């Protein structure tokens, strides 16, 4: 018997299953992003250092994370960590580790750019008023840096959410994989199921990412 694919979408728990898959992706992105913000802020402050060794090491870390496709990093952590360090991570945890490593690097660069984009005289003036370096950072530099940082951080979150489908390749059942699992057993009853299910997955991603990117653009415009 042949049915239209759209019925497949609403049959039984299928739609809820897709949403659950989306939540798996989102949980990875959210957790990794929160960790990246904390670690990346630290890294970004370190990166403004004038020490050559520090500069070189942080730069090397950033470039490595940037240049390697995320899927390669996922493979390295998922397969090699077990082999050489006997650390057994499941796909979900491996994904969180990789996205945190990558996010920290990207976040560090954003923080560094935000801090260095603040004119030097702000720093000198605050020092001339008798504030300690720590006070200057907290009361003068950081509040301004955060304003410049927020839109770019939201954009990074968006990019991270859009990179999460990769985790399907190391066996995490996220939204695309769930879609595949719904389609495969129904191949004959619902021949055009894949059109509808994958279309819905795209729509779900759009529904999550579009508002986020709007907010980022709005903030960018307001604070520029």
């Amino acid at each position, binding site marked *: 018997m042949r049915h239209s694919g759209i019925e497949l979408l609403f049959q039984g728990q299928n739609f809820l299953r897709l949403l659950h898959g989306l939540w798996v992706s989102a949980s990875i992105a959210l957790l990794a992003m929160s960790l990246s913000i904390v670690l990346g802020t630290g890294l970004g402050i370190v990166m403004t250092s004038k020490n050559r060794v520090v500069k070189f090491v942080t730069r090397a870390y950033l470039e490595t994370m940037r240049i390697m496709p995320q899927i*390669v990093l996922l493979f390295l952590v998922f397969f090699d960590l077990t082999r050489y360090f006997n650390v057994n991570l499941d796909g979900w945890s491996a994904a969180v580790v990789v996205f945190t490593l990558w996010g920290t690097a990207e976040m560090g660069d954003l923080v560094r750019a935000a801090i260095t984009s603040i004119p030097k005289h702000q720093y000198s003036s605050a020092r001339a008023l008798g504030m300690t370096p720590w006070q200057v950072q907290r009361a003068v530099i950081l509040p301004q840096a955060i304003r410049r940082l927020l839109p770019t951080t939201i954009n990074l979150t968006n990019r991270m959410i859009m990179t999460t489908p990769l985790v399907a390749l190391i066996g995490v059942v996220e939204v*695309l994989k769930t879609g595949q699992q719904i389609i495969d057993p129904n191949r004959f009853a619902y021949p055009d199921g894949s059109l509808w299910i994958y279309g819905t997955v795209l729509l779900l991603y759009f529904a999550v990412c579009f508002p986020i990117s709007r907010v980022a653009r709005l903030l960018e415009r307001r604070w520029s």
Partner: protein
Amino acid sequence: MNWAVIQATLPTFIEATLLTVRVAAFGIVGALIVGILCATITRAKLPVARQLVWVYVEISRNTPLLGQLFFLYYGLPKLGIVVDAEHCAVIGLTFLGGSFMAEALRSGLDAVEPIQWQSAQSLGLSGVQTMRHVILPQATAIAMPALTANVIFLIKETSVVSIIALADLVFVAKEQIGSDYTTAEALFLLVSCYLVILLPVSLGAGWLERRLRHATFGD
């Protein structure tokens, strides 16, 4: 690390590297063409086309490439549109990259102050001349970091095409891990091949940026 295994599988990886480079190259060229087209339409403020470009850019920027590829490769044949895997990958990459290129070009054009245009006009240059000699050189220099970042981003994004059964680097590595359990060797080759592709591009991008900046702004 077993060097014999590496030697034996190297040809497969070289072939996969070539495939990755081929898909990336066509995708990048396609993305640039789409990007230039979209940026021109937005700039010229063409009434309906402009809204269409906006819709395209938002859809392309807010959905993952993997989802787009699944839809193209597994979904569209149900509507009678059948495209083979490699073309699918290039189309997907072009669709994704086009919006990123368009945004980079648009922000480059926007960053050139309107007074530049007005001054050139008052000196008697025609619209095309102003574009060619005044606006475009500056806009290109401003947009170049974003454009090269997009090129690297697109090359990296090709790593997902294995999902539509294209034998790219990730596909080959995954197959070797699955069938021979030579995980270390496969991953070593995977990382090396990507470095061989991306390192020259990344270094070249930095060099090009500095050259262009120097030529345009003299610093």
